[in-house]
């Protein structure tokens, strides 16, 4: 067993090195803006209005994506589990589509279907295009959100909770958002953080819809300012780390399970 353990160490070390190497390289590069010395000069770009606007825009879109996803997915999973189990295969198939259809193809379809001369001109104004971007991101997040919430709801006894709430006179809205939702909170949060990580740096869709998000801003910076681009990449890396870290923390359900 000793020898296989050495092999295992080697495999893990090479793997971890490959995953950490670009991080080290980017941090080091971002500190090199001033010749001959390490400094945080490149990070001054974080103080510019352009960065802050694009970053704020991406943050808001990410949060709205999470909210809209939850509003669409939670009732769907709930009703499919409780009353419409026959729909499950169809719903599962649909939620897999965003993994099958490349994002660039999806946005191509949007641009042709919702162009400014169509029945629903979602690319006509900046506001409408923001809405289209939001829905595109909800589509991107759908496989992850659905699976997180579906597996979360399988671990709670939805039926008993519903019946208990109904017998106490609760309406549907109350049941969904004050009884069911808190019980799948950890699942929703882990889906939410993953969604956040995906949306915050997205480039393809935003670029083709011409929206001023962080991803397209970063691409523009990279064209002429490599040190600043590295600094921003470090920030993007930190956000991905934070999202996945928070997902680990909140995704773990520490409360005793209700209704078993």
């Amino acid at each position, binding site marked *: 067993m000793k020898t296989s353990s050495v092999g*295992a160490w080697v*495999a*893990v070390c090479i*793997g971890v090195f490959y995953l950490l190497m670009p991080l080290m390289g980017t941090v080091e590069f971002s500190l090199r803006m001033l010749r001959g010395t390490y400094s945080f000069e490149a990070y001054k770009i974080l103080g510019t209005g352009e960065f802050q606007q694009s970053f704020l825009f991406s943050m808001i879109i990410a949060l709205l994506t999470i909210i809209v996803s939850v509003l*669409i997915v939670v009732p769907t999973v709930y009703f499919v589990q409780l009353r419409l189990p026959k729909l499950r295969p169809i719903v599962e198939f649909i939620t897999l589509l965003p993994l099958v259809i490349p994002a660039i193809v999806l946005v191509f379809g949007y641009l042709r279907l919702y162009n400014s001369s169509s029945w629903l001109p979602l690319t006509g104004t900046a506001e409408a295009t923001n809405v289209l971007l939001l829905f595109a991101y909800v589509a991107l997040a759908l496989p992850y959100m659905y699976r997180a919430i579906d597996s979360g709801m399988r671990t709670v006894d939805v039926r008993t909770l519903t*019946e208990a709430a109904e017998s106490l006179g609760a309406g549907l809205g109350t049941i969904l958002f004050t009884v069911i939702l808190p019980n799948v909170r950890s699942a929703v949060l882990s889906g939410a953080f993953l969604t956040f990580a995906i949306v915050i740096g997205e*480039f393809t869709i935003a670029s083709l819809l011409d929206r001023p998000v962080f991803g397209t801003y970063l691409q523009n910076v990279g064209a002429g300012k*490599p040190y600043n681009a590295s600094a921003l990449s470090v920030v993007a890396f930190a956000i991905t780390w934070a999202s996945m*870290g928070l997902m680990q923390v909140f995704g773990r359900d520490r409360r005793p399970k209700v209704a078993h």
Partner: protein
Amino acid sequence: MSSSAGLADITEHAGGPAPQQVKTARRMSNTLIATFGVVPFFLFSAMFLILPTLFLCIGAFQDQGGQFTLENIYKIFANQFLLDAYLVSIKISVITALGAAVLGFFVAQAIVLGNLPAWLRPTVTTLSGVASNFAGVPLAFAFLATIGPTGLITGWLLSYFGINLRTLGFNVVSFWGVVAAYLYFQIPLMVLIITPALDGLKKEWREAAVTLGATPLDYWRYVGLPVLGPSLIGATVLLFANSFGAIATAYALAGPSLNLITIQLYNQIRGDVLHDENLGFAVALGMILITGASNAAYIYLRERSERWIK
């Protein structure tokens, strides 16, 4: 549903109409509400997943005037530039899928079966979760900063090992640079997909094999790999699809000139560079067919592997 719906009936409708009638009415209204509750999901899916895709697929079989034609499909096969783009995309996807499958398998095998300290597994899994989601523009810049002309690793290789990446013909803003960057999210994805399958390899199988005189190599040759086979192939196919549809990393790293099919489609969407709207739809259709087929293969293989691994 019946038992508690009955309970609710008793409490709410004691002395009302006949219980059976109430029950039926209640059930119907429940189904109605439930149907109403899933409407937003289906509406959303129709508008932002199904119709846009359908629009492209139908457009691929139409000429400029909207008449049915197979002309667009023929045009792809007659267009060497587009065929090359598909080929380069397929090549990059095959290389990164196979490379990541092998390397990811070794890492996963090490953390599951390698007798390593217990803390290592969650650490590697978390790191894989982060890395598999770190793609796109920032990843491109990270690789540029690391193995680019003045990158950290480039410098180390030169000063400590005397290896000059440039004279070796390696250029980060080219095919192999894109491969290196794609491996960054492909390897950890492989680790995440294959770890549960490795967990499913029962200890008893190995013990039984060893008792019967098998060497570790025999065990993998005759037990481990055959059982894992469908999972391994399925994971590789999924990695292929994952890479085939990607664009942002390659676009930010190598620019619009790299001849990937996603980048050609990007250019086509931006400025109709093919000067043929419907040919663009056909290009999109080709991509959907390729990713669709690989996802179908993945689902089929996953179901097969579940026969052994529970």
